[in-house]
């Protein structure tokens, strides 16, 4: 039996003629795939951006006013509990001190605002992805807009990291570039899928 095409004559992303076994219009294949990927990545990215916001808040709130980090305190029982050596314990303080030292004055505020925007848009991308899977008429436009917005957030983060110190660059650049590429692909996928569905509807 030939598999049924699910991206044939379509009413926006939903096929007019086919229904899924649970009832209701079945979404186009591209919309189901892209939507599911968007939901999974959106859940993870919401967490990542929220964690970045937390990072900036924690670093700013606890940074010593004179920029000099206090000495590490490494009690034996805590080292054992966390599986750390004394050298690692001391490095944790140096590491955080390096992050604070390497950040220009504008960096924490900018990244906090950017990660707040990223958290909101990433959450919206979950909604857009779910709408794609659900075959909602507005879903492709919403998906293209949210994925594009996420790409813009990634690009802004990339530019910010480029203009920060070397310690922050090595932390942020590759990750930001990877997310930027993923979101560009998803944006183009949503746009291409939208055009495909429109063409199929017109045919």
């Amino acid at each position, binding site marked *: 039996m030939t598999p049924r095409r*699910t991206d044939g004559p379509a009413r926006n992303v939903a096929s007019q003629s086919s229904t*899924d*076994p*649970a*009832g*209701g219009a*079945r*979404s186009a*294949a591209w919309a*189901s*795939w892209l*939507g*599911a*990927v968007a*939901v*999974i990545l959106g*859940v*993870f990215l*919401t*967490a*990542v951006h*929220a*964690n970045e916001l*937390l*990072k900036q*808040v*924690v*670093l700013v*709130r*606890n940074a*010593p006013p004179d920029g000099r980090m*206090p000495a*590490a*305190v*490494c*009690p034996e*029982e*805590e080292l054992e*509990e*966390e599986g*750390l050596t004394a050298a690692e*314990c001391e490095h*944790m*303080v140096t*590491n*955080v001190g390096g992050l604070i030292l390497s950040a220009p004055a504008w960096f924490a505020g900018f990244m906090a605002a950017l990660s707040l925007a990223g958290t909101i848009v990433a*959450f919206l991308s*979950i909604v857009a*992805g*779910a*709408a794609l*899977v*659900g075959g909602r008429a507005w879903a492709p436009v919403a998906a293209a807009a949210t994925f594009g917005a996420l790409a813009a957030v990634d690009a802004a983060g990339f530019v910010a990291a480029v203009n920060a110190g070397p310690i922050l660059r090595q932390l942020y650049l590759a990750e930001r570039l990877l997310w930027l590429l993923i979101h560009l692909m998803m944006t183009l996928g949503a746009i291409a899928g939208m055009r495909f569905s429109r063409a199929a509807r017109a045919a």
Partner: protein
Amino acid sequence: MARQGYSPTAVVIHWLIAVCIFFLFVSSWWMMGLPLPSDELTFRELPFQLHKNLGITLLAALALLLYVRLRHRPAPAPDRAARPWMHRLAAADHVLIYVLIVAVCVSGYLSSSYTRWGTTLWWLVELPDWADEDEAMNMLFSDIHLWTAWALLAVVAVHVGGALYHAFRNDGVVRRMLR
């Protein structure tokens, strides 16, 4: 009559729980690299309180999800959507996820209870100390917390893999949780 998909409340809680779990993982990996606490080094204070608060809230959200799921049962997944062993795997994976979420949250809270670090629920309600400080008990529950968390990540990966499989088949199963 059973709904075709899960109830909107169940859908919203499910995705909030998903975001919460991933945030707890990502933030915990980061916060464990922060300096050990002292009078002058307080970097861990906010993330640890937030971690404990989200864990406790997650338990409440899970209880609400189970209540809603029991009250509003969706129609069974389409028969042609998966083979019998897949149905069994999915059912077992769901149960494991619920059990592990409870185990991770409870062991985390108990671990914290045996330390000198108290928990203030959302910075409003001071939770009572259930136990005296005890390093051995703290270590025990801390280990349980750690390993149940890794196990939870593994079963969530199976859950996500199953969802993607059905989404790529476009067989209507995933739509039930995305309405």
